[in-house]
């Protein structure tokens, strides 16, 4: 299928000799925004590592752009959860975005044409995340929300068709989280780029999701949010009674999943 970005059939993955999760089945189409939800340590990042070709599945079949995942696929843009950047990283943001465009080259392309291509890709990436003014700002002096936008621009500079965002909302307050979700949603719609977003909390995302991949208890449930995030479906996933409650604005609270489940935390 032309629009198919990734496909998993009976996928299973092991880590350190034990099965992290098994029998995952999902399809990701072009231009879809997919949330990957689940408790800590359930194997959400593991799914990303599979898609990036950094680890191999122990069973089942995984296709990315209709071929086996391979490391260094330029069609994938990746924003990991942890970064080396800290207060002492006094490097202007545009440098990182530039590396996102051509950092894998041994020697930069310094022909006038190469410089122009890099500049336009970098400028465009920064503009699309609303960070044009941040280009010269030091990474070390940035707020969590600003940094996330720069990492997003770094990933977008390579013109990916699949974006993998690992916990981009983790360090953001509610308002900044909502801004970032709106930004990602806009990128998905305008660039038609399929996006997988790992999150703790479904609520900031619920209004714009096309699909949910819920990983818990060694199992993976996939489908529309209205299908997956129900009392019945999550109870089956966890193997214990789980209650999905809704408030008047459509926010949901998942009660009783697991102690470590962040949705049940304040």
């Amino acid at each position, binding site marked *: 299928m032309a629009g198919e970005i990734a496909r998993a059939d009976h996928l299973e993955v092991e880590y350190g000799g034990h099965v992290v999760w098994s029998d995952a089945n999902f399809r990701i189409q072009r231009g879809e925004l997919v949330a990957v939800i689940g408790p800590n340590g359930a194997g959400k990042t593991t799914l990303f590592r599979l898609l990036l070709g950094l680890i191999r599945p122990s069973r089942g079949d995984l296709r990315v752009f209709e071929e086996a995942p391979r490391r*260094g696929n330029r069609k994938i843009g990746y924003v990991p959860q*942890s970064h*080396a950047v800290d207060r002492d990283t006094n490097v202007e943001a545009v440098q990182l975005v530039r590396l996102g465009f051509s950092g894998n080259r041994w020697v930069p392309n310094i022909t006038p044409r190469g410089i122009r291509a890099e500049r336009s890709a970098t400028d465009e990436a920064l503009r699309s995340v609303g960070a044009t003014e941040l280009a010269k700002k030091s990474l070390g002096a940035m707020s969590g929300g600003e940094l996330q936008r720069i990492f997003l621009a770094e*990933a977008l500079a390579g013109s990916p068709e699949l974006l993998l965002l690992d916990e981009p909302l983790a360090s953001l307050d509610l308002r900044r989280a909502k801004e970032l979700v709106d930004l990602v949603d806009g990128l998905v719609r305008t660039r038609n780029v399929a996006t997988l977003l790992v999150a703790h909390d479904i609520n900031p995302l619920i209004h714009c999701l096309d699909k949910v991949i819920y990983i818990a208890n060694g199992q993976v449930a996939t489908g529309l949010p209205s299908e997956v995030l129900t009392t019945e479906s999550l109870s089956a996933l966890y193997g214990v009674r789980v209650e999905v409650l809704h408030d008047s604005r459509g926010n949901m609270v998942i009660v009783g999943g697991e102690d470590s489940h962040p949705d049940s935390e304040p």
Partner: protein
Amino acid sequence: MTDITWVWWGWNIVYDLRVMLQYEFVRNAFEAGTVIAILAGVVSYLVVLRRSSFAAHALGHVGFSGAAGAVLFGVAPIYGLLLFTTTSGSGIALLGQKASHRDVEIGTVLAFMLGLGLLFLSFYNGFATEAYSILFGSIVGISNSQVVFTVETSLAVLAVLAVVYRQLLFASLDEEVAEAKGMHTLVLGVIFMLALAVAISIAVTIIGVLLIFALTVTPAAIAIRLSRRPLVAVLISVLVALFATWAGIFIAFYEVEPTSFFIVTIVFVLYVIVRILPFLPRTKSRRAVEGHGQGA
């Protein structure tokens, strides 16, 4: 000290330099010092960016026992230095980026290595002067063949760094993304550590094991506060290392104190200045540093 022919420096630096450069050991010192400063300046930017300053410190100590061992076996200290620093450097790199933050483990191995170096020296008769020059450096004793070796090694390492620089920069700033993009971050880490090991080994000649920080870490620690652009910062770092080395050799020629003391002092003063700058009243000329001091 009044009976020997005592040269004194005046206000005419060109004349002073001309006097100095008549001596072969001074020419050797300047030549070796220049390439060492360039290499150390480049490497130090990566050290600061990768937060590997403890590894730099560690390799210096490991180098001490290597040098002491070489002295014991009648080999030039530089070969012992190179052998020990490159071996342990690649060892640290192969353990992964996170290993360079294992201060306790590295520190424990370090103390042992220093002890081993001490043991080697105790077997050797002339140990006091040898130990002194390895620990604190002695650039004035550098021979012609050492200069050639230093220049050739430095140029080779600089050539390798020029090729991997961009990937190394990426892997240092955003290792996980670089890995996902298909870069061999482990190999890049080993290349970086090998470059650091060589830079340290040859820098020991002028600055010594104990003062190695002044050339392999501090120049970039100064530069990174002055520029947000990696290439400009590398350039500043090299200039700082060069200035400190040249000025150190120059002053030490006319004063009794050792060269490495002057180099360390110059680097330290520059570092203190860039740390104080952000707290001074804002001026236009300070725009480059602006913004950083708030976070630091």
